[in-house]
């Protein structure tokens, strides 16, 4: 392994495939974001930063950005609080707990497409099981057009996304919990610490790595969210659930504004990059302190 030629040879296949299908297209995005390329015509022109200027003045971009942020914040907060709670509750070796872990994880095995359809059916205002159930228990006035009403559609999509990923997030926390040495808790018991104190002083600091991973996965995943929204609402009603990825897809492949689409992609990338670096800084320093 000391010869450079040999090292290169080992890395070459991965290098070629990865460069050609990830790096080159990515650099292409930077290039095309300065053009008026429409995807159909072979010819295109340089337009400088025009795409970025129209992007700033495009109300739809701001709506998509706001929607994406709302989606990301809701998903990250609710999912992490609940999944950590579930992880603490299913930590143990009884068969019930092991069974529940398996059950909670099943939605993570299904495609976002499948889950989108399942919940579209449940949310359906007429045939939908949710409204039917509400009527059966005498809460008919709570029935809503869950996906068709802009007041509710975002929350409905957010809930569906949480439904899918709760189990995965729980399993990651569980792995973190099981790595905590048991004698720490015993010592705390001797000191007479209560449940809450045990959580704040031992559990929370020591699951920092799992916390970092989960928060990063949910935020980055949320900023890229496409499938589940595309299937359930296509971004609608109106633009009520339109995320950046949905807008990007629409601009590029429905309206053939490929150049403009790449500009949106780059804004999206910069946001994800910024958040990840910022988060890793904060969360990793918490890990070190612990």
């Amino acid at each position: 392994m000391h010869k450079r030629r040999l090292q290169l040879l080992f890395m070459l296949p991965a290098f070629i495939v990865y460069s050609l299908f990830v790096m080159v297209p990515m650099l292409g995005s930077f290039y095309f974001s300065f053009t008026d390329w429409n995807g159909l015509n072979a010819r295109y022109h340089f337009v400088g930063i025009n795409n970025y200027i129209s992007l700033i003045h495009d109300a739809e971009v701001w709506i998509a950005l706001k929607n994406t942020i709302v989606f990301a914040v809701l998903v990250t907060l609710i999912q992490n609080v609940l999944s950590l709670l579930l992880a603490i509750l299913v930590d143990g070796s009884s068969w019930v707990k092991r069974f529940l872990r398996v059950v909670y994880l099943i939605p993570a095995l299904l495609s976002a497409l499948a889950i989108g359809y399942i919940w579209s059916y449940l949310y359906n205002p007429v045939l939908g099981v949710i409204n039917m159930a509400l009527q059966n228990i005498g809460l008919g006035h709570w029935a809503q057009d869950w996906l068709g009403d802009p007041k509710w559609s975002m929350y409905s999509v957010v809930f569906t996304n949480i439904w899918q990923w709760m189990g995965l997030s729980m399993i990651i926390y569980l792995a973190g919990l099981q790595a905590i040495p048991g004698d720490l808790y015993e010592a705390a018991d001797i000191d007479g610490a209560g449940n809450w104190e045990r959580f704040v002083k031992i559990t929370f600091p020591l699951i920092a790595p799992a916390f970092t991973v989960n928060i990063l996965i949910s935020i980055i995943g949320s900023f890229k969210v496409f499938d589940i929204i595309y299937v359930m609402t296509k971004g609608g009603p109106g633009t009520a659930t339109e995320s950046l990825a949905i807008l990007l897809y629409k601009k590029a492949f429905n309206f053939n504004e490929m150049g403009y689409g790449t500009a949106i992609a780059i804004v999206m990338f910069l946001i994800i990059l910024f958040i990840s670096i910022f988060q890793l800084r904060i969360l990793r320093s918490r890990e070190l302190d612990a």
Partner: protein
Amino acid sequence: MKKTLTSSLVAAALLLIWALIVIVPLLILISVTVKSPKEMLDSTFAFPKEWMWSNFTEAWQTAHMLTAFGNSLLITAFSLIGVVIVSAFAAYPIARVKSRLTGSFFLYFIAGIMIPFPLSMIPLYKLLKMLDLINTHQGVILIYIAITIPFSVFLYTGFLKGVPKELEESALIDGCGPLRTFLTIIFPLMKPVTASVIITNSLTIWNDFLIPLLYLQARENRTIPMAIFSFTGQYNSNWAMIFSAIVLGALPLVITFLLLQNQFIKGIVGGAVKG
């Protein structure tokens, strides 16, 4: 641990509620596929009186599920084989040799973890057209290998760094070439990471919808998610058909998961926590 009765009751209630929230939609999914539409309307929540299997056979035929299954299997299998081979090979010099060359390659590879797919998706369309790979299995397989390389190289490198060098050094002294050492000694040692790489990536690839939606539209090349998607255009709200196709498409992963729970969970966790 001292536990009061109320706190364990609250805990049990929470666990039960989330279990119901997960299970009830899945039961409804299955009941829609086996109940007649009339029974579904009359008694949504009741256990099916008559099991109707015809939805499955009809979905199987009209959605061309057999072709879709074949395509999904082929694409997933070749992508996984591809990413395992190229990433394991690339990780070996990166983990073993500390030099500027291997260091920069490592950074170059893992930079991809930060690149969201939408950033390359539009030029990728042009590239595939140029290479005549649009609407082909090969094109999609190459994309899957490429986008899973960063994380897989990262996992392999991390694991290899923890493997002592003695084994391979004695093999090298015995006159075993580097390639043979890698294939006969290192690669078999990496089984646990290979399992992680395969499990996490198989979930992503088997369930992916966006990439086939963009680059694999032709009917004869459709994957399962695309077959289900195209199906909904034809039978606007024929939920029995859609749900049958969903159940069929999900079965392989769900069954593998139920059979290999522990390996599966370890694989997912190994894949996530190392990140």
